[in-house]
């Protein structure tokens, strides 16, 4: 019986012991990540373990990205806990404001994660790195503290739901639309405790930025991971990292007779740009079926859609246009490098000329932290990942989710529209 990529990654981290879906393993991890929300608890817990030093100061990553630049005194205190811990433990991968980016855009960009790695992060969107052929998953602060102390974490090796995307992608349809469509199909608990695997000819041709978007939202279907078999696109992405990590990168493939819990084929030919209506990411509809929904704020960015591919699409639509009066459009390049590249390509100028606001990298508005909080009764259209009650501010506000093309076109129109209708 063959093995899935997920089973192979766990096997290579269990001293070559062959493990199968359903096995409980207590295994070493390659990287253990925390942010300014989750790491303070982990640091507190770490101290309680009695451990003096983290297991490996090169394998702990700390990114203060959620409420930074510090939005208030309490957030500043939290960020300081990270800073002090990083200094005391001589953590190599601590990224201060100015070097920081949104963690799940930053780690792949820096080459800190690669194919075959096993990564945990105290942030649910840690599943993003599945796009690189890594097994990466979100955990809580106590799991993170335990991993920092021991270098190990416990897992139940998940079964795999394999999605095969076939057909021809329509204009304006991106990785975001594919993942929203998929979540709409299986529901917010459709992949609970399982690994999702994205495959097929459409994925083979999908650029890395869009693959990262898809893997990022696997958690919105309850999945433990959103993995993509590493290929030539992965190789070329890894080769272009500025500081490639000399890790145990391995380009693993599924065995031909690997066992999946289910194989689901999706023909993308009929998929239009998608919208997820409040208050679940699974409440999806084709954008054409949503009529006359006026919006107060558009947010383009986040760990889901704040990469170059996203900003380029938004700029293409916003060029020589203005954001609708009475609507705020906030754009967040996800990292400093993306910010700089967008500047060089003239994208930031397009955004500012369109009367959009360009922000420093932060998770800010996505989770209702800062930099664009909604008032009661307001409605936002966002390229972020969650539209739960109160997610972006007041409990009586609403969030609609979409890809960057729909977001940019709707920002100009003042209501939710198909980019072709602009």
């Amino acid at each position: 019986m063959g093995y899935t990529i997920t089973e192979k990654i766990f096997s290579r981290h269990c001293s070559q012991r062959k493990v199968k879906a359903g096995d409980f393993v207590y295994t070493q991890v390659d990287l253990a990540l925390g942010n300014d929300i989750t790491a303070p608890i982990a640091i507190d817990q770490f101290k309680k373990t009695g451990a003096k030093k983290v297991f490996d100061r090169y394998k702990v990553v700390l990114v203060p990205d959620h409420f930074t630049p510090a939005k208030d005194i309490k957030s500043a205190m939290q960020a300081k806990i990270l800073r002090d811990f990083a200094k005391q433990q001589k953590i190599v991968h601590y990224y201060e404001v100015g070097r920081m980016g949104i963690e799940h855009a930053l780690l792949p960009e820096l080459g800190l994660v690669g194919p075959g790695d096993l990564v945990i992060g105290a942030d649910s969107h840690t599943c993003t790195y599945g796009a690189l052929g890594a097994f990466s998953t979100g955990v809580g602060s106590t799991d993170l503290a335990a991993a920092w102390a021991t270098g190990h974490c416990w897992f139940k090796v998940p079964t795999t739901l394999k999605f095969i995307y076939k057909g021809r992608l329509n204009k304006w349809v991106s990785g975001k639309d594919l993942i929203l469509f998929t979540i709409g199909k299986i529901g917010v608990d459709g992949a609970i405790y399982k690994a999702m695997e994205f495959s097929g000819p459409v994925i083979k041709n999908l650029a890395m930025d869009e693959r990262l978007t898809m893997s990022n939202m696997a958690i919105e279907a309850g999945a433990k991971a959103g993995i993509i078999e590493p290929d030539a696109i992965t190789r070329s992405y890894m080769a272009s990292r500025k500081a490639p990590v000399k890790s145990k990168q391995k380009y693993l493939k599924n065995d031909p007779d690997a066992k999946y819990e289910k194989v689901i084929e999706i023909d993308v030919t009929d998929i239009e740009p998608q919208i997820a209506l409040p208050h679940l990411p699974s409440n999806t509809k084709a954008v054409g079926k949503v009529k006359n929904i006026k919006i107060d704020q558009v947010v383009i960015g986040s760990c889901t859609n704040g990469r170059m591919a996203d900003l380029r699409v938004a700029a293409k639509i916003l060029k020589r246009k203005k954001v609708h009066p009475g609507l705020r459009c906030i754009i967040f390049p996800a990292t400093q490098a993306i910010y700089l590249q967008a500047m060089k390509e003239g994208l930031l100028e397009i955004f500012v000329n369109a009367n959009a606001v360009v922000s420093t990298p932060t998770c800010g508005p996505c989770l209702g932290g800062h930099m664009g909080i909604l008032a009661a009764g307001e409605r936002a259209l966002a390229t972020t990942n969650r539209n739960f009650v109160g997610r972006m501010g007041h409990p009586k506000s609403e969030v609609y989710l979409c890809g960057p093309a729909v977001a940019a076109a709707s920002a100009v129109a003042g209501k939710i529209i198909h980019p072709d209708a602009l």
Partner: protein
Amino acid sequence: MKIKGKVWKFSKNINTDEIIAARYLNTFDTKELGNHCMEDIDKSFAKRVKSGDIIVAGTNFGCGSSREHAPMAIKGCGVSCVIAESFARIFYRNAINIGLPILVSVEAAKDIKTGDVIEVDAKQGVIYNLTKKKTYKTECFPQFMQEIINAGSLLCWIKNRGL
């Protein structure tokens, strides 16, 4: 260990933003988090809930973010146990890791209503509904997780192993 308390019933897909909104994540003080537990779906919950009360919910309880503040807030407002048809996986881990008792029971979660008084015998895997005079079974924990539960928390478990 037996837990007895009055039930607060919630629907399915209760997410961590609802359990504790992000605007309160600039602290990890359990009591302070507890003061805002469930605020965006039931503004007065944290004020009305009594120490020892039990949350019962539908499927996928605790979906969304990995914030450990969610089970901390539930503990902080005095809730003694959570029973659901199913749990989102990160919440499930977090609750076990910090020693918040959680149990999966489809029949109990469907039948129990707000205000019912129930008694939970986690060790035997039985829930007694004292109001309705009914008994439900809970799913057993896998042996590996039972070890962590027996140890009291993940940190105690790793300490017992000698780190």
